[in-house]
């Protein structure tokens, strides 16, 4: 008997950690209690991307979007929505500055501007059920590829669609496939790179969690095109849920005869195994990943030979990112023309970004290539919270660069599709592989960290460099020694001991590390430093010459003082700061203005946090 209503409860990692599974259990219990179990079906789905407001649930077929649910809300919700047929307004999402809550998911700006290809089934299916995936036209592209297309035709289709590697470098996927197909050596391997190590990025995890079969189908089509016999899914061990779901999906595909020998009577033999990564960032680099799969230390090696010729176990190997594989089936389904209409001239299709940082709507979004940063940050992201000014956006994870907000005196030249040239704000930069590279950053796997005026750019570059320095494998000299020395210099600058010689050395080392490192990690590790040096040089100079941190982030450079007027007039010399100061550096009597002894102050900032009257001023 068909159900009247489907409750799609999000069970992505974000919502699960917000207790969405308890919400689901409560919901099921309540529905049974009300005798609705034959009318209302509860489905656990993968991540919807809007993690900022989880746990969330979508009620289909109307598409009503409920957010920030708790078990207490459930009886009301069942009563109102499922029995009385009235959607519950107070559980709906209200965008900032909007007058009323928006009931429908498709009307919410966060979702409205998105275009879902890789994440086409997110929130719509139970990722642990292959039947759900098949019901959403799953594995149809495989059938088409096996029954109607030759391997050459598949590669041609992918090439003409303009699909490029979503792992960051943007190598044309079709070209890679053809190389592996033509390379001598049997058996051939294909690998799904799910070693998503960028801090704050969770695109691959989300695809595994919400739609694992889309990856398997992509790999199957790839296997047919390339002539591969075995596939490997390399996944971070820090993704337990994703790991579990891809394993379930592979098992189900085997049971359905979609993996194994003679798949769908086509003569294609292909099977997938799962390898868990041990947590090294560098294992996302393809040669290091192969070494890791082979059981060796995850160190990159010099290329050439490329994995397309000499990969896993010395055989031709095609490595693609999770998102790339997830894009394959729709292209085969709908044809290259459909896909190539989306995006810019050189970057086709959509890209999944994880939008984090100082932005209202943090979460995962899939948008067409060519969308501007302004649309991403303001329309989808909802802008910067707390009336702060947008300062910069960091793209491409720790290896990417920082793109500044509009610098009106340095606008970029934008070539419109009709050939007209105009000066534009960086915020109006249409995002694709080339435009990001041109401004010194990169697409990377799709991390977007938004920063507001309270962010110190020197500190940001130090933070990202500390990450890459820690994750450097140590094989080549520039990355091993260079990143460490760069970090030392940045630490000196942040602590106020930097000199102009340091700055020159920093620039020179950064250039050499970028030019001469062995693998992608080293080649991109200086990007945050180089872009901040390019766009925010004044901040470095402020740290070095004036010994000041303009954003008041670098504590060693701050001075703290108490405004005597505010302290007395508003706070009546309450003395909270004096009691809390661990160094006993604050002096003063009750009802008298307090003051900080600069010789004792260790600049810990506790006084700022405890003062209710904002009387402590940081300079």
């Amino acid at each position: 008997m068909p159900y009247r209503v489907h409750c799609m409860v999000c069970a992505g990692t974000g919502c699960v950690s917000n207790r969405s599974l308890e919400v689901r259990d409560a919901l099921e219990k309540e529905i049974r209690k009300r005798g609705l179990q034959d009318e209302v079906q509860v489905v656990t789905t993968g991540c919807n991307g809007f993690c900022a407001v989880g746990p969330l649930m979508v009620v289909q077929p109307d598409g009503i979007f409920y957010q920030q649910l708790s078990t207490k809300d459930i009886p009301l919700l069942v009563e109102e929505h499922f029995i009385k047929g009235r959607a519950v307004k107070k559980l709906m999402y209200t965008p900032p500055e909007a007058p009323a809550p928006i009931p429908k998911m498709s009307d919410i700006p966060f979702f409205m501007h998105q275009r879902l290809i890789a994440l086409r089934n997110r929130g719509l299916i139970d990722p642990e059920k292959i039947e759900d995936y098949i019901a959403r036209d799953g594995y149809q592209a495989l059938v088409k590829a096996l029954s109607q297309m030759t391997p050459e035709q598949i590669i041609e289709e992918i090439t003409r669609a303009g699909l490029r590697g979503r792992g960051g470098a943007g190598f044309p996927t079709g070209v890679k496939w053809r190389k592996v197909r033509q390379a001598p050596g049997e058996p051939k391997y294909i690998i799904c790179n799910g070693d998503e190590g960028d801090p704050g990025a969770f695109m691959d995890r989300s695809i595994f969690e919400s739609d694992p079969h889309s990856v398997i189908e992509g790999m199957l089509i790839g296997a047919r095109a390339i002539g591969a016999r075995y596939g490997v899914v390399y996944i971070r061990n820090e993704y337990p849920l994703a790991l579990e779901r891809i394993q379930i999906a592979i098992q189900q595909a085997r049971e359905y005869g979609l993996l194994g020998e003679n798949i769908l009577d086509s003569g294609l033999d292909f099977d997938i195994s799962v390898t868990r990564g041990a947590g090294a960032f560098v294992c996302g680099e393809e040669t290091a990943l192969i070494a890791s799969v082979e059981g060796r230390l995850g160190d990159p090696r010099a290329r050439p030979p490329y994995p397309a010729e000499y990969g896993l176990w010395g055989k031709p190997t095609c490595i693609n990112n999770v998102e790339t594989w997830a894009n394959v089936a729709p292209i085969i389904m709908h044809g290259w023309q459909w896909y190539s209409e989306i995006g810019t001239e050189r970057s086709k299709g959509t890209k999944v970004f994880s939008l984090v940082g100082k932005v209202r709507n943090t979460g995962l979004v899939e948008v067409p290539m060519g969308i501007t940063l302004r649309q991403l940050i303001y329309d989808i992201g909802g802008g910067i919270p707390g009336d702060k000014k947008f300062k910069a956006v960091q793209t491409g994870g720790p290896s990417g660069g920082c793109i500044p907000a509009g610098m009106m005196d340095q606008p970029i030249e934008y070539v419109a599709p009709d050939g007209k040239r105009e000066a534009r704000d960086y915020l109006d930069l249409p995002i694709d592989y080339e435009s990001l590279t041109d401004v010194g950053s990169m697409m990377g796997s799709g991390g977007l960290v938004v920063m507001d005026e309270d962010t110190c750019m020197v500190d940001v570059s130090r933070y990202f460099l500390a990450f890459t320095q820690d994750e450097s494998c140590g094989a080549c000299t520039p990355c091993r020694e260079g990143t460490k020395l760069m970090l030392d210099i940045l630490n000196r600058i942040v602590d106020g001991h930097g000199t102009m010689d340091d700055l020159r050395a920093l620039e020179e080392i950064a250039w050499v590390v970028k030019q001469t490192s062995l693998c992608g990690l080293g080649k991109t590790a200086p990007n945050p430093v180089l872009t901040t040096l390019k766009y925010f040089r004044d901040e470095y100079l402020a740290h070095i010459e004036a010994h000041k941190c303009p954003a008041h982030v670098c504590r060693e450079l701050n001075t703290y003082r108490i405004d005597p007027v505010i302290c007395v007039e508003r706070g009546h010399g309450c003395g909270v700061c004096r009691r809390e100061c661990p160094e006993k550096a604050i002096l003063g009597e009750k009802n008298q203005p307090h003051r900080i002894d600069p010789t004792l102050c260790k600049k810990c900032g506790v006084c700022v946090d405890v003062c209710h009257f904002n009387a402590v001023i940081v300079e």
Partner: protein
Amino acid sequence: MISLTINGTRTQVRKGTTILQAAKFLEIPIPTLCYHPWLKPFGACRVCVVQVQRPHGYELLTACNIPCEEGMIVQTDTEPVRQARRVVVELMLARWPNVPVVRKLAAEVGLEKPRFISEMRDEAPDACILCLRCVRICEEVVGACALGYEDRGIKRRVVTPFDQESEACVACGACAHVCPTSHIRFEPEDYRGKPPEFLLGPNTAIYVTTPQAVPKVPRIDRDACIHFKTDGCQKCVEVCEAKAVKHEMTDEELEIEVGQILVATGYDLFDASVMAQYGYGRLDNIYTALDIERMLNATGPTGGQIRLKNGRPPRAVGIIHCVGSRDENYRRYCSRVCCMYALKFAHLIKERCPEAEVYNFYIDMRAFGKGYEEFYSRVLHEGANVIRGKVAEVVQAGWSKQDEGTLLIRCEDTLIGKFREIPVDMVILCNAIEPQRDAERVARLFGLSRSPDGFFLERHPKLDPVATSSDGLFVAGCAQGPKDIPDTVAQASAAAARMLATIAKGVVEIDPVRAEINEEYCSGCRVCNALCPYEAIEYLEDRKVSRVNSALCKGCGTCVAACPAGAITGYGFSDSQLQAELEGLLTVR
């Protein structure tokens, strides 16, 4: 062929040639560090970067591992290349300021001292610079994989697994060989404490057994060869132009049918360490005669120079005769050669170290051969000291600085009737000649007899000193008894002549005296088989009887007496025949 341009010079190279190889061909210098010709290119140090022209500008690539491409334009000395190399070397110099290879590179790129100090700064001149040549050769060439590295980034270290002595290590020393900073040194246990020139044995896995070896071809020591331990290496196969190295060759056992055999299995040397009073193997600078022969050899480890362990020539040398020979406790016989070679040593030491005093300690001077006595007189005239008396012991002289390493020989000088202590710094022991250790086995194999001293017994000491009691079997040389080279040559020539005589004659005469088994009486008990000293009796499995091989039987009669069934008789000497002969004699005509 691929054509490319390096520094403006056009050249053509084979496909797969790296930029470094092409530059080497054009004699364009490119600095390298982690590169090693035996190893696969690794591209870790990044010192060898060169500038390669690309459509949108240029790219800095490592020359060691990037293969040449058609139309490639390479430049090795542009400003970006110089800057990149300078900074890369500076990064290394900041961490390893005193390592010679790094300093040399720094000098090449015009760098005196680094601008910064690394937190991991290591001032040792033999610090590990993480070129990983050792790890790679152990994996790629040796195949042992005994070395690896741990931790990542700046904390990376080359280690054996878990920092423990690696079980996988085959002690080949390849890692030490390729280490550019001597961070890894190779000290095999056997050689510890001895200077390299005193490594008296072979120390590589391939060597010519002796300088005078016939045929003069090298052999592979399976116990030392890396290939047999790890299945890797095979560098010798790569370098041998004649393609003569074949690891799959094994020892072969050949069966050759012959009519006559000459047993010349030689002798062994008495183990002098048994005589603890002489200190051999316990004290330094005490050698056997064969050690000294090797040292005196021009192809030997010291090039023929007499040297002490510390590398200096000796000031006084004691040569002790009759070590183990003419000794009631060990070997009663005279080894016959020691007196003369001891005098030869005295002569050679006098010749090569004229400053050195030489003392010969003898019981009797046995200079019996042609010209021997004259040689003895000559050595005496050269200033060698001879002391008649058996050496009691050799001891360490003392513990003061100037006495260090000096030995003291204690003996009784029977000619002057006094007890003497003579300080020397080198002692040469003239060990006794002994039968080969496997003489017993050889004797059984050939049915040879041995005299009480253990050497093989000839048929007759005076009338037939080269033959043995078995026909067609001859002995020569020290296998038969201690003798010097002229005697050995004489005996061997005689044996050869005897064998040739038989061959020339074409037929063999055998003694008619032999045993015979009456198969009707033989019960197949096989008592005779084990008793026959000539292994002339064989057992016929099919007929369950024994049979005498009449060509081997010497007619000794042992089996005749032993046969419990009385089935064996001497041929022509049966009881009835003897009885008939007796009867014939006793018949009264």
